[in-house]
């Protein structure tokens, strides 16, 4: 068997190299035969020409025999492929415009797909870099119910849960605890904030990585409770801060409130299981917890702060491991409930563990990004389909134009299969070139995508082996899709008719092309409707008044870093920060605050005379501010007044309520002067002095959120002074001066951090913007491709009918009638596509709903506009060439031939 295979291969290879000689011998042999045969005929008295003709006829088609003989010699497969390739390349070189058009179209289609695949792959499919055996590595989630019985899924746990699970489960090799936090690094004026991953020693065992320098820490340095103050630096941080020097091992680094000794550097690109990019440092989670909460932290029930990973034993099924996890959670919670009886009954809490994949986007906490990215990949695929339809169509037109050539070759004895293979080779070559162009486009365009979708820090090479593989697949599919229809159509029909007929005759309208046109129009409509919906949705998001200004506002916070000031100190520090900030040129207003929109919120109990259990009505967000609070944020006071100097500590307590809160609590009444008790039902009455414009503080869509505002002076000072500053001009320019001035006020190790408010608010708008950008980009691409496709197809058809049109005009048909004829036939097809597309979009609308903001997915305006655009493209595509056709002199049209 193997022997045969080898001799077969030897034969083929030898045949390939000896090709030219064999070819020559074949010619000699066949011509010898023909000559002998002709001689025989001549002996019977026939003329030499007739003799040769008879000889040839008896022989059958010469070309076919050569092919057969080649097949017999075994070179056919490789050789004919090379021949097909040569032939295809020659054909493509001869028609540069056609080739360019096809390559660009396919390049855009394939490029869009490659780029999107890179994103979706990273979001959904590819396990984190270096993860060992992803099958058995899990992220731990816990299902449960809130006190008001709503289901919720948690992934942040108390440290004791981690200890309990390790102690009571049997299905796992190990657990790891980790948490990525933004912490202060360095000292004095060099203090800066960076992401630090607090991780158990077992965390590194989940990954197959070696430190770039030094070592990772081990279990002894991560012992409960205090661990050891050691730190492993992130590669990027090491490069940026220490210039990649290797003599840093043993140096000290201040992190948060402790001093840590550098023992190693993580390998380049190592992110771990976090979703916030490459951390600047890794420290033992016990060392951090001990410094932050003291030695008692392992017993705390309430400090739920860290995430967990679990490594399942390979012989245990996931279902069994889940069961084990659930019972361990229940046992652990039994203790918690015993210690905190007022938290409810264990039976009511519906606690259950879940082992999810390591990728957040595939677990129960998948964000909108993953959903949107999947959608966009689908969109990219549709774009590719449209591109394929365009190209298939071009091929068909070309195949039609070449049908005499094909007929000739068939007559010469080339088999149909061979001809079809040649066409497929041609489309494969084009798809390959298109794929190469696509990769360039992907590489170039993906940088933008990545910035929008993935953490900038997570970026690496875009065109990696997986994307390449995907692209290769896309190329194959493309080649098949574009080549198969023309290949199937080759040599259909009567050869004689084709050979005799002129270029403009014959049964030239195949059934495939109108179908392609309808198909293309359908897809374009669906995409364009999607794009339209997203554009409207984004304009809603953009024009949506958050109730405050984001762009001109800076947020400054003082981080005490373990320093514990008295309440009096806190107040005076806050006042000093406010006064200092106001003195800086360019600062308009400044105010104290305790909450930051979309970043941190406070809630509190609320009692209103005459209303039962107010807090059941929703989430009442509690905010404090100094007199310039509303001016700083640009929030309008609709009724009454904002707080001012009169509302000091000790003065009559007051509050400002948001518009919707006033409406919800006192519908149809004047909210001013109403009494609200804040914090406890025994608290003194706070009087409503004003109604402010509604502020969106936690989500764009949350309907059950209300907000109210209390003067800072009448509220206990927050542990960390925080201020908002409104500036004129470029806010970025003021960040550093503000930080420098405020830092001078800081006592001891405390430091100041200043960021633009937009940096905190924008991420929550990112997913909306992202989806829109992508849909619009791809929708635009689709429209362009579809327009080109429709135009070329209709225009080509019209050109093909030039002769027919000439006849009609010669017979007295008016130009307008002929125009009407052509336009209506184009419109009929595109119209069918539009109807199908609209139906498809209506059907798919329900899945779009969650991705749109204040926008119905069945917006008739958008549907109408899209349908209009496509029909317009169809009309233009039909009218232009039709006009040209009608201007042709009927006489010359009638004589028109090949």
């Amino acid at each position, binding site marked *: 068997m193997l022997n045969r295979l080898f001799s077969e291969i030897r*034969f083929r290879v030898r045949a390939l190299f000896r090709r030219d000689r064999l070819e020559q*011998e074949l010619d*000699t*042999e*066949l011509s*010898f*035969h023909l*000559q*002998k*045969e002709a001689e025989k005929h001549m002996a019977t008295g026939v003329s030499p020409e007739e003799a040769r003709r008879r000889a040839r006829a*008896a*022989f*059958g*088609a*010469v070309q*076919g*025999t050569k092919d*057969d*003989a080649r*097949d*017999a*010699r*075994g070179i056919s497969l490789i050789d004919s492929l090379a021949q097909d390739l040569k032939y295809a390349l020659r054909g493509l070189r001869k028609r540069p415009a056609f080739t360019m058009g096809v390559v660009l179209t396919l390049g855009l289609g394939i490029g869009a797909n490659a780029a999107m695949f890179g994103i979706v792959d990273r979001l959904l499919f590819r396990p984190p870099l270096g993860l060992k055996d992803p099958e058995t590595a899990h992220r731990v989630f816990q299902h449960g119910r809130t006190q008001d019985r709503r289901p919720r899924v948690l992934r942040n746990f108390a440290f004791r849960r981690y200890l309990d699970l390790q102690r009571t489960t049997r299905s796992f090799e190990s657990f790891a605890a980790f948490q990525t936090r933004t912490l202060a690094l360095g000292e004095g004026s060099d203090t800066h904030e960076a992401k630090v991953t607090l991780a158990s020693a077992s965390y590194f065992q989940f990954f197959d990585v070696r430190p770039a320098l030094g070592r990772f820490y081990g279990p002894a340095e991560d012992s409960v409770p205090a661990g050891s103050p050691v730190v492993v630096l992130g590669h990027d941080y090491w490069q940026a801060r220490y210039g990649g020097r290797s003599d840093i091992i043993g140096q000290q680094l201040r992190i948060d409130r402790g001093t840590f000794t550098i023992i190693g550097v993580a390998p380049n690109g190592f992110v771990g299981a976090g979703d916030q990019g490459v951390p600047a440092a890794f420290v033992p989670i016990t060392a951090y917890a001990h410094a932050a909460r003291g030695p008692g932290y392992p017993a705390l029930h309430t400090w739920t702060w860290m995430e967990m990973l679990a490594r399942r034993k390979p012989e245990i099924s996931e279902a069994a491991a889940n069961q084990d996890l659930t019972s361990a959670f229940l046992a652990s919670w039994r203790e918690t409930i015993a210690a905190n009886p007022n938290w409810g009954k264990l039976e009511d809490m519906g606690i259950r563990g879940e082992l999810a994949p390591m990728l957040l986007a595939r677990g129960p906490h998948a964000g909108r990004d993953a959903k949107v990215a999947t959608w966009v990949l689908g969109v990219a695929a549709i774009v590719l389909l449209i591109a394929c339809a365009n190209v298939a169509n071009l091929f068909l037109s070309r195949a039609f134009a070449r049908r005499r050539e094909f007929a000739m070759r068939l007559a010469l004895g080339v088999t149909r299969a061979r001809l079809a293979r040649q066409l497929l080779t041609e489309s494969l070559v084009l798809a390959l070139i298109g794929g190469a162009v696509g990769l360039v486009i992907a590489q170039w365009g993906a940088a933008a995508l990545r910035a929008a979708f993935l953490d900038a820090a997570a970026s690496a090479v875009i065109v990696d082996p997986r994307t390449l593989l995907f692209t290769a697949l896309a190329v194959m599919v493309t080649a098949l899709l574009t080549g198969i229809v023309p290949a199937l159509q080759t040599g259909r029909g009567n050869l004689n008719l084709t050979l005799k007929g002129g270029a403009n005759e014959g049964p030239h309208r195949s059934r495939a092309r109108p179908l392609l046109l309808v198909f293309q129009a359908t897809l374009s409509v669906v995409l364009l409707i999607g794009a339209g919906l997203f554009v409207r949705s984004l304009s809603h998001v953009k024009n949506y008044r958050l109730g405050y200004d984001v762009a001109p506002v800076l947020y400054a916070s003082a981080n005490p870093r373990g320093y514990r000031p008295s309440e009096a100190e806190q107040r005076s520090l806050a006042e000093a920060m406010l006064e200092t900030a106001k003195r800086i040129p360019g600062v308009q207003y400044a105010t104290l605050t305790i909450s930051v929109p979309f970043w941190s919120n406070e809630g509190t109990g609320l009692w209103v005379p005459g209303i039962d259990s107010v807090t059941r009505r929703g989430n009442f967000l509690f905010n404090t501010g100094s007199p310039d609070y509303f001016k700083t944020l640009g929030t309008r006071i609709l009724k009454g007044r904002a707080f001012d100097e009169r509302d000091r500590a000790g003065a009559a307590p007051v509050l400002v309520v948001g518009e919707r809160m006033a409406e919800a609590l006192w519908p149809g009444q004047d909210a001013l002067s109403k009494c609200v008790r804040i914090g406890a039902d025994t608290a003194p009455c706070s009087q409503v002095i004003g109604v402010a414009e509604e502020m969106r503080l936690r989500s764009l869509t949350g309907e059950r959120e209300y907000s109210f505002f209390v003067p800072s002076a009448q509220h206990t000072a927050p542990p960390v002074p925080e201020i908002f500053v409104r500036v004129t001009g470029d806010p970025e320019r003021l960040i550093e001066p503000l930080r420098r001035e405020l830092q001078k006020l800081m006592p001891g190790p405390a430091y100041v951090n200043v960021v633009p408010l937009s940096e905190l608010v924008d991420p929550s708008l990112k997913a909306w913007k992202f989806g829109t950008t992508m849909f619009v980009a791809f929708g635009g691409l689709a429209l362009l491709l579809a327009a080109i496709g429709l135009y070329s197809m209709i225009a080509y058809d019209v050109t093909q009918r030039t002769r027919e049109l000439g006849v009609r005009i010669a017979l007295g048909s008016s130009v307008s009638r002929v125009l009407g004829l052509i336009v209506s036939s184009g419109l009929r097809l595109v119209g069918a596509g539009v109807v199908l597309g609209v139906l498809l979009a209506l059907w798919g609308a329900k899945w779009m709903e969650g991705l749109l903001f204040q926008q119905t997915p069945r917006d008739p305006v958008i549907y109408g506009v899209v349908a209009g655009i496509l029909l317009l493209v169809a009309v233009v595509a039909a009218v232009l060439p039709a006009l040209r056709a009608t201007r042709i002199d009927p006489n010359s049209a009638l004589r028109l031939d090949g």
Partner: protein
Amino acid sequence: MARTPIDLLQGTLDVLILKSLSWGPRHGHAVARLIRASSEGAFEVLDGSLYAALHRMEERGWVEAEWGLSDKGKRAKFYQLTPLGRQQLKNETASWQRYSVAVAKLLTATVQP
């Protein structure tokens, strides 16, 4: 020569070529002539397929080819049976005989068995 040529059954051509070559080496045209003559015109070998068959058999090692001069001094490719080809001819002849006897028996039967 008034006989109508019959189509060759699939697989028959090979054995006919082998038989023609069993008389000694000859070139393609001679093989075609021999088949035509010895079947008294019953078998019309389309010459193209003859060469395909010859090349195929060359690949399988049943025949060997050698360039030589024809009786008129022209360069021609002469084919000759290899031992393997001779064996093949023996096998094919045997199975053909069995086959044709069986078919003849069946077709000439006068009573239903």
